[in-house]
């Protein structure tokens, strides 16, 4: 998969059905390097277009997945 420009590319994510709805996520963004930013997804809404940084944190939370029709995909984390 192609590398994504983490600052500008928007990733489409959607809530995973059957999982307790996530109400807030902490993540590190390039807007505030070194510090946490916090994102509270709108309650009741299932689809969001977000930065790759936020999408990564959202997917890692288990409450979201990248939507199939998302133009930008996340690079799978490789574990050594």
């Amino acid at each position: 998969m192609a590398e994504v420009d983490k600052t500008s590319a928007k990733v489409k994510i959607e809530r995973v059905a059957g999982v307790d709805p996530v109400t807030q996520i902490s993540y590190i963004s390039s807007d505030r390097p070194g510090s946490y930013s916090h994102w509270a997804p709108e309650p009741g809404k299932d689809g969001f277009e977000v930065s790759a940084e936020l999408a990564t944190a959202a997917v890692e939370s288990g409450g979201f997945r990248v939507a199939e029709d998302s133009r930008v995909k996340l690079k799978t984390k490789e574990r050594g």
Partner: protein
Amino acid sequence: MGTPASYKWLIGSIKTEGNFGVAMATADLTDWYKIKEADFSAMDTTFESDDDEINGYVGGTLLTVQERKGTMARKAKASIELITWALGEMLGNVTSSGSTPNYVQTIKWRNVCAVNPPSFSFIEGEDCVGQTATNWLYKGCVINTLTLEFNGKGPGALTLALMHDGSETAQASVVFPVPAAAFAVNKLFGYHLTTKLGPLGTEDITPLLRTWKMTINSGIVEPPSMAAGVYVAEYQYGPKNPKIDIEITLKANKGHAIYGYYQASPPTVLKHVSALTINTNRSITLTQSSCLVTATAKPSGNEVNLDIKIMEQHNATDSGPGAFVCKTGFANLLTPSP
């Protein structure tokens, strides 16, 4: 006159500073948690003296304020709400989920890219007639250490060591909650604790527990800064911090399986799960999926005890040396204010 007994402090349980040292909105600082002592915030001022310069005569020494910073302590009876707030403010890595009124905060170790812990503001003062000049707002506050201790069935003791950026802002118009309006908490007692420790993490040692203590240390450091002004510009996590230490005293001797896990060569890798449970919707659970222990036998009255120390091991399951799942009434934590 104000009195130590009239001391109150106000935080925002689910709020944090959007940027370090930018005060939270006072409208968000409304939660008064009862504490045991009037630990007034202390100011630490570094003065620069010219007494190391030869000025040709023995004259008056010139002292210049070089830097101001501050510390304070908080000692409280343990509650799910205050512990969850403190864990969120210390570790910063929080995922909130669930729905009203039963929300869940999963709090993991700081992201490796996180340099700065979250910071918050609070107001303290003596809530007596005519004492509004004792009301001050402190900002740029971070939690350096958290200690939670249980001894027998009694209430848990929570101790926090905090640091602030050294500024004090008068808050004469703040109105403290009336005595009956302290923040409603679920207090934790020794009998709320269950501990499992063993190769599977299902080996229940709760009936043998005598004491249980957890210490989390952020190792806060203040990097040298030339930012304008005399106040602290930034606090950072110390390298390789935060660290977690668990110390347990157990009614057991060298014949206990846990001593064998320590004795084994190599020592047996264990899983530790400690849960503080009021009910199914109000609890805090610490899981350390991988850890080693040390065990020391000692006499205690008419019985033999094992002092057990749990040594943290970072692991992929917990994304760190442990992970907390806090079931609270908080919809979120760390929402930026203002």
